[in-house]
């Protein structure tokens, strides 16, 4: 008996509220499914059945009463400190009530597990983690995306219907794209951030939901935002399309699927497509990387770098040491670029409602060699993905990744970005896109799920 496991997040909540689904049965079935499917995926790195049962027993009759969710290893729980996917963090970590935990608890949701993530949040692929890599349910030899690798793999494999991730440089949108999910990077400051080890210093990181579709993201993000993200009508949507490498240096099938999706969205909303120019994009991408990397260095000393945990990956150790070499003038100029990009975007959003481009330029790369082949040549997935993902983090605007196609049997995704505070519009636009394509892509399931149990 599936006990509601394959219902959407909102369907689970509604069925429980109506008395048609027993939340205790749902919790136990969810824990059993994690035990059954997770060994092949490594999406969930910790479960705590007794804590989850206690959480359910104490849950208020609130919007997500009884709904199981997982949370990224970036957030502390009262009974478990975050590990940030790493053998060692550069900041103190201890158990506690993080903002997302409180929001979930107060909404009646049940945290059933901690989800894997890319080590130190420093990668778009999810192939490096102290727990070992999470695997993409669409093809377990492929990257699930990062850094919210486990949240995405958990939802794609239907371990749970919703997951909480975090996005500092695309870290919700990349895994949403690779795993065929919808993932919203909220406007900076709008979603719960308390308890994050960088909450006081980061100007790029936000919490956010990864779910199968936009309506589920709306439900879960409403909880994280602490306010109802009301649905609206995106009729007459003005869609901006950026030229250049972010739209053109893209795998042909990804480009075609995204161009088709933009046209479908235009038709569905009775809107229009306008070409826009964002000459600062390349500089903004670098600025984001420099700022995000340097904001984490407050507690770093050379002595500390000389005694890094040997279990930290060589890649992680090397990148931490490299960050010290970034010249101060570059980070100062990066802040100026941020100002410039924000001013340019403010002007652009007077003329368009959303900016559309592929979320990632190619489908999920192999775990063993996370590189992608683009018209310009072969690039690391990180170098390719950051081109489209960074701008929203640098400037604070919201962005959403929506599945819009398939290539090589793997999901393809479109990113939509909107002006500050227009998170609701992005959800409206994502739902319009779902209507336009008959929900074909949000309802697609990884083929391996047909042959359960998955073999490790």
């Amino acid at each position: 008996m599936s006990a509601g496991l394959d219902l959407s997040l909102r369907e689970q909540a509604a069925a429980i509220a109506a008395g048609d689904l027993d939340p205790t049965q749902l919790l136990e079935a969810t824990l059993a499914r994690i035990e059954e499917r997770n060994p092949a995926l490594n999406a969930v790195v910790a479960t705590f059945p007794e804590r989850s049962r206690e959480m359910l027993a104490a849950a208020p009759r609130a919007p997500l009463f009884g709904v199981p969710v997982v949370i990224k290893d970036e957030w502390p729980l009262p009974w478990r400190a975050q590990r940030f996917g790493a053998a060692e963090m550069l900041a103190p970590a201890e158990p506690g009530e993080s903002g997302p935990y409180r929001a979930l608890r107060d909404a009646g949701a049940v945290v059933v597990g901690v989800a894997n993530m890319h080590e130190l949040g420093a990668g778009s692929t999810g192939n490096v983690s102290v727990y070992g890599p999470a695997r993409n349910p669409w093809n377990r030899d492929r990257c699930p995306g990062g850094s919210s690798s486990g949240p995405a793999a958990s939802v794609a494999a239907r371990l749970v219907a919703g997951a909480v991730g975090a996005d500092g440089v695309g870290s919700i949108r990349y895994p949403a794209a690779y795993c065929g999910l919808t993932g919203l990077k909220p406007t900076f400051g709008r979603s719960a951030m308390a308890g994050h080890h960088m909450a006081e210093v980061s100007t790029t990181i936000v919490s956010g939901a990864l779910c199968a579709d936009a309506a589920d993201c709306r439900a879960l993000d409403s909880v994280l935002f602490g306010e109802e993200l009301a649905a609206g009508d995106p009729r007459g949507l003005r869609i901006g399309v950026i030229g250049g490498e972010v739209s053109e240096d893209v795998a042909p099938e990804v480009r075609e699927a995204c161009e088709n999706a933009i046209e479908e969205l235009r038709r569905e909303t009775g809107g229009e497509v306008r070409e826009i120019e964002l000459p600062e994009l390349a500089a903004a991408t670098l600025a984001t990387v420099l700022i995000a990397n340097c904001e984490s260095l407050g507690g770093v000393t050379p002595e500390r770098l000389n005694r890094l945990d040997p279990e930290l990956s060589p890649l992680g150790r090397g990148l931490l040491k490299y960050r010290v070499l970034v010249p101060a003038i570059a980070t100062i100029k990066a802040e100026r670029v941020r100002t410039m990009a924000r001013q340019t975007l403010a002007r652009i959003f007077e003329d368009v409602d959303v900016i559309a481009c592929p979320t990632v330029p190619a489908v999920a790369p192999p775990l063993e060699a996370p590189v992608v082949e683009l018209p310009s040549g072969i690039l690391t997935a990180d170098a390719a993905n950051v081109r489209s993902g960074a701008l929203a983090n640098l400037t604070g605007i919201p962005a959403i990744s929506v599945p819009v196609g398939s290539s090589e049997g793997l999901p393809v995704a479109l990113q939509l970005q909107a002006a500050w505070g227009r998170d609701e519009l992005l959800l409206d636009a994502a739902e319009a896109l779902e209507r336009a394509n008959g929900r074909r892509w949000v309802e697609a399931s990884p083929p391996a799920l047909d042959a359960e149990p998955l073999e490790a």
Partner: protein
Amino acid sequence: MEASEHTDDFIPAALAAYGIEADEIELAVVRAAHQTLWPPILELLDLDTSDIPLERDPDLSQAPPSR
């Protein structure tokens, strides 16, 4: 000589100047990161930003104040 050609000398010397130790694998990672990021950093350094007023303590949840 191209700036990137200084990498082999620059990386170990710069780390040593900070008193940071690195094994061969870490050095290879640092070199790779440097080779990837240094060309765009040089482009950034060439950018004259003197006429861009710094948005002091920007509220990233909002559009910048109109000027």
